Each structure stands twice: as C-alpha cells, then as structure tokens.
C-alpha cells in the first residue's frame, strides 16, 4: 500500500476462490495454453526429422507451457492441445497419438524445471536416463556404431548434464528474475535442457516403433543441434514476451509458475 495512504478498513486475508484451478493454475489458463499449443501445431516447423515428417512449431513451447503453469497443469494443457492438433492439424501429427504423450512429458519437465523443492527432478532424471540408454542401446544392437550414436545424441547428453548440474537451479532463478535479460537467458538454458531430454524420451519411443537405419543416424548428427537450437529460440522468444506481459498485466500467477 502506498505510504501516504492508510486504509480505514481492516486488512482481510485474500483467498483465491475465483474459479477452479488445476494444481494451482486457473482452468482458464490451461484452456488458453492448450489453444496456443493447438494453434502452433498448424505450423510445420521443419521438414527434416528422423521419423520422416515435419514437426510442429508447438514443440518449441511445450517446455514453456510447463514453466508458465507448473508440471501438472502444464502437462494437461500441452496434452489437450496436442490431442486436438492430432485431429485438426494432421499434417504435423507425425507419429500420431503417441505425440500427445511426448507433449505431456515435455511440458511436465518444463514444470519440474522450475519447482523449488521436491523430487520430481530426480524422477524425471530416471526417465530421461532410461530413455537415453534404451534409445542408444537399441541402436547399438542393430547397426549403429558407438561413436556415431554418441555424436547423434550429443545434445541429449548435454541435456542430461545440464539437468544434474546446478544449471537447472540457475535457469529457474533467472526465469524468476525481474530483469528480462536474465529471464531470456534462463528460458534459453531451461528450454534447451528440457527440449533435449524430452526429445530423447520421444526418440526412444519412436525408434522402438519405427526404427531408422545407420544412414539416418549420420544425418542426425548435424540436424539435431540445429533443430534443438531453433526449438529453444522459439520457446525463449515467445516466453520473454509472454512473461513480460503477464507480469505487466498483474494477472493472478499460477501457484507453480516459474516466472
């Protein structure tokens, strides 16, 4: 309250009863973010992908959805948005319904990234490490050499490394910083590690169901870093604008939001 003004009324405890929430995020926010994911799913982001089709621009914001809403609400928003998109934007549906699961895990990881406490990060780490071992292990048993596998999954390894190092906490702190420059740095770092790990999870699944020959692994070496860079830039650019706007508007902040 402004120093010069002393209210006559007694201060009351404000409880946020203003509508249903999911894990502290208003349902309206979940609906809006789901709509954003669906809308961005219409935009094919790349024609080069291991599974052979294009992937949607929405993949650039899955991590951001989790950062904005928290793990559960973020996962729900991304999942609903992606599920609708599978039917209304089939040109970017890729592997179809499994992509809904990828979106859920992706956004949940974004939410876990900004959690201050709890063991969610460890559970996520177990999932990501298992995914990596499964993915690379299966490749080695077919026709991929270890050096090629390591080169093609360098970004995945970087993602795991960033997840276990204090960089995860650093990204969280920067995202919550009032300075928008730090927010941008935090989003870039956070989205990078989330994208890398979530894509490892998705690749493990897709590789198990489709598989691709060693020649494709060679192509992945230069392609994956470029794609991940652009995914991360998309999340960062959109995220900085959205976070700046949300802060300026003074709208209620979801309980587990990272900003």
């Amino acid at each position, binding site marked *: 309250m*402004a120093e010069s003004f002393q*209210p006559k*009324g007694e201060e009351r405890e404000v*409880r*946020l009863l203003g*509508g249903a929430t999911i894990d502290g995020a208003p349902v309206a926010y979940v609906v809006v973010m789901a709509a954003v994911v669906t809308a961005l799913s219409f935009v094919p982001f790349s024609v080069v992908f291991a599974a052979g089709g294009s992937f949607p621009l929405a993949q650039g914001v899955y991590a951001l959805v989790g950062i904005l809403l928290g793990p559960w609400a973020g996962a729900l928003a991304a999942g609903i948005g992606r599920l609708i998109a599978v039917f209304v934007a089939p040109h970017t549906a890729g592997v179809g319904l499994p992509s809904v699961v990828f979106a859920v895990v992706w956004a949940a990881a974004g939410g876990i990234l900004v959690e201050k406490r709890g063991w969610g990060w460890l559970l996520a780490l177990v999932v990501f490490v298992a995914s990596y071992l499964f993915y690379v292990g299966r490749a080695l048993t077919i026709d991929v050499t270890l050096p090629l596998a390591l080169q093609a999954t360098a970004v995945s390894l970087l993602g795991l490394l960033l997840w276990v190092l204090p960089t995860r906490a650093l990204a969280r702190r920067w995202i919550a910083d009032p300075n*928008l420059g730090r927010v941008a740095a935090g989003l870039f770092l956070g989205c990078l590690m989330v994208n890398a790990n979530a894509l490892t999870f998705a690749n493990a699944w897709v590789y198990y169901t489709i598989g691709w020959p060693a020649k494709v692994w060679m192509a992945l070496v230069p392609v994956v870093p470029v794609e991940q860079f652009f995914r991360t830039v998309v999340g960062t650019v959109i995220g900085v604008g959205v976070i700046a*706007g949300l802060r*300026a508007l003074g709208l209620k*902040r979801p309980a587990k939001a990272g900003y």
Partner: protein
Amino acid sequence: MAEPIVLLENLSYQYPGASAPALRDVNLRVERGEFVGIVGPTGAGKTTLCLALNGTVPQFYGGRFFGRALVAGLDTLEHPIHDLARHVGMVFQDPEAQLLTTSVENEVAFALENLCVPPEAIRARVARALAAVRLQGLEKKRPHELSGGQKQRLAIAAALALEPDLLVLDEPTTQLDPVGQEEVFATVARLNREQGVTVVMASHAVEYLAEHATRLVILDQGQVLQVGPPRDVLAQVEQLEALGLRVPQVTRFYHLMQARGERLPTLPVTQDEALAQYRGLRGRWRIRSDGAAVAASPPREGPPLIEVEDLRHVYPDGTEALRGVSLRVWPGEYVVIVGQNGAGKSTLAKHVVHLLEPTSGTVRVGGEDVRGLSTAALAQRVGFISQNPDNQIFTTRVEEEVAFALRARRVPEAEVQRRVAWALEEMGLAPYRDRHPLSLPKGDRARLVVAAVLAMGPDILIFDEPTTGQDPQGARRILDLSRRLQEQGKTVLVITHHLYLMPPYAERAVVMARGAILLDAPLRQAFHAVDVLRQSDLQPPQIVLFARALAAWEGVDLPILTEEELAARVEVTGEMEHGGV
C-alpha cells in the same frame, strides 16, 4: 431498513505488484431497485469497483483487500465467484469479448448449463431473457452476425438469464454507435423500471445516465468524491470539468448562461428539463438568428492527396462492405468520417493504407495507386491508428514501442531519442516510458499507439475511433493533438461515433451507411442533417437537437454546433414569462 443489495464499507484494494491502491476507503450503499451510474476519469477505479461486486477482485487477481464488500448479503471474500455469479450479472465493455458460443440461444444458456440448471428451466429462462432484451426471433442466429447493439443486448440477456439481483455493466456502450448505445440504455432502464433489476453501470455517457440513473457516483483516484441524484451531482459543472469529466451539453449551456450572471433555480440535466426550463424563460431570453451560418464547402486547389474512386470491397464471407465509394481529400484538410457500426468506415481507411485490397476501384495517395507502393513507403506517408490499440502494440517497453519503427527505418539514434521524447511528451506518456505497455490502462495504450505513429512523422494521419474507451480528457488530448498536426500542414482523417467531440476540430464530415457515402458536407451542415444522420443510426450531439427544438419554437435559423455558440446567440431581454421553473 431493508438489506441493501450492495454494501461497501471502507473498501480499499491494491492489485498485486501495483504501487498504489485502485480503490481507497470506498463506502457505498445501493438499495434494491436502484440504477446507480459510476462516472470517473480513466484510472479512477470504475472497472475495479465493478469487478469487486462479483468477487473477481480480489478472488481472481489476489492483491491486498481492506474493509468489507457485501453483495446480496454475501461477503465477497467468503463466497466463491460462482456463488456470487448467481446474484450478480456482469456485462463488459467489448461485446465481442464475452460471446463464445455459436448461436444466440446457446449463448444465453451457457452459464445456466454450467450451473446445472435443469433443461426445462433453461429453455424458459432463455426465452424470458431474450424477450427482455427484445432479441426474440433471433435464437438461431450466430452472435457474430448481430449488430454491435444487439451483441451487447445479448450479453445482457446472458447475464439476465441468471436472474441476478444485481446487473453490473462496465462501460457497455463505448464501442457502440449512438443507436446501439440508445438500445442498450433503453433496455437496461426498462429492466430496472419494469422488472426491478438493480443496475450499477460505469459509463462516460453522461447524457444517458442523467436520463436514467437514480444516483451517480463520482470516482477519482479510487475515491468516492460524490454520491447523489444526477441533478445534484451534474450541477457541479466546474468540479466535474476539473476532473476531466463531461456534463450533459444542455447542463453546460445553462451553466454558461449562469456564468453570464443569469440566476437559474436549477441546472437541467436532461433535454426535457432543459426545454421545460427554456419555456419558463421565454420572453426574458431571446435567440438571435444571426451568427454562424451553414458555409458552403471551401474551394479546393490543386490535386487531392487521397483519391478514392468507385471503391468496392467484398469480404471473403460475401459481405459487401463498400459499394462504389468515391472520396477526395485535399492536403491539410481535417475530415471526420461518421457512420453506424458496419458502415464501412474502417474498411475504407484500411484501403488507404493498403491493408485491404480493393475488390474493384482504385485508391491513390499523392497521385500514386497504393497497390504500387510498398508497405514501408506507404507507412511513411500515412499513419494509421487502429481501433484496438492492442493490435498495434508488441514490445515490452513504452519507449521501445515508439522507437521501434524509427529504428527499423534506420533513423539516427539521436533523432530517434528526440522524436520519442517529443511523441511521449505530446501524449502525456513521458512518466511511463519504462513501463510495459500492457500495464497501462486502455486509454493510455491508445495514446501510446498515437505516439508511435506520430514519431514517424507521416503527412496523413488516420485515427480509427481514437476516442473509444477514453475519458473526455484523454479524448480531448488526442483530438487537440490532431488539430495541432493539421495546423502544421498534416492531413487528418478521424473515424468516430462521438459526434459531440468533433465541432472544435473537423471542417468536413463524411456520413457513411451500409457501405456508401450518404453525405459529404461541411461539419455544420452535416450535423444538422438529422434525417441523413439517422439513416446511419447516428444522432447529432444533444446541443444540436436542443438548438433545433428552440429554433422550431422561435422560428429562427440556429445552425449552432456547441454550447458556447448557443449561449452567444441568447440575448437576455426582460422579465421571465412564467417566473422560471
């Protein structure tokens, strides 16, 4: 004493992250069946007060809350919004923003379905609500096919279907043309009068509030300054004008007469009261018929700057928005384009900046067909300020927003800084240069867009509804600037519904209706062409209608446009015929 429908006791509220409270020690008691108008400048706290009545403030926004707010006997801090929604119906400024289904009846049924009202009861309530706002027969129509006034009436029907004890409307008519505005006020007043619905309405439309409200609340900087019947509150002309608020034009006219030394028992606040008071003064007051006359259009020299020839535009859905429009605007002119919602005004303006492609016909700026000009080249010649400021705002700082286009044009940084500082100063936004644009009230965001366009220094400025959502002071600030720019040689086109604001500024008026130009004439002639204006769902300013009534009585020609002009025509000659009113 019966329990009031609204009881606010020492209510103070501060939004999270805000540096100052939005409401300060508000005390207000609203009895059942009242129609309370809330008037105040931009940022006075009108919207916050409305939102506090259904618990959205503070339950959705959070923040700090002091005192007590009881609505229908329920403490708004202790009952969730969905409980309060059964007692309070809300209608907001933008009718588009609150309609979300695909048919009129579904729209009205939506909230009831969410509250698990049985289907038979829903059907009955939908029928009643639509009848109450006179939208029967349109049940299957798509909401987006309705006119602006109909959309807002539909929003009111959706609120009414909840059978609320209290209907809260937050500036529900600012985006509507005068006939749409009339429809909404007539509907709300009838619901209040005939069905006993209690109404709280924030609005700048003081002429209508004076007509219908039982009490007015004047808010400024979150504080209640005055509460009372419109006659008492609006009579404080100087105090209200000092706050940047308007009073009805007839009130202002009588106030001017009072300032000339006339002793008047009361200041009338409605047209009927004003006419009645004049009747009592006949004989003492005499209207001179000399003075302002309808001038012919001034001769124009040289080639026109904007030339529109036989322009047609058909939108992809088949709507014919422009039907063979031809218009010429000469350098240095100030033209106001008026017309009903959907008349084609904005569509015409968008062709001048080539945001739309003509279906047929041509648009030339400076003699060149706009189709041959690049967007960048056209943007340097024509500045377009769109109706919704948020469509043109995309950076994270006020200063950056103004500088953006200049830097994109590689203007030297020192010049960028100079122009940004000038534009922000002109629009009164200099103190907010480091703020996020979305943290500003809508009126300030509109001025920010004007500042961004101004900084580019275009020769032609097109303002599309620049005064919508502005308080009178904000509107004047924008229009004063437009006049200064015209005086500097710029050509100005203003699209507006707010006819009463234009007399000090525009010289020429173009009246549009249903995609065609009905009249292109000097402003004075156009504002007195009442029949033509009505064809476009417009009506002249209150003072013009009042003057026309006086002219008919006195048998004189009275083509005045402002209260000052009318006061100048009144000669005080002798004693009152009937001793006043």
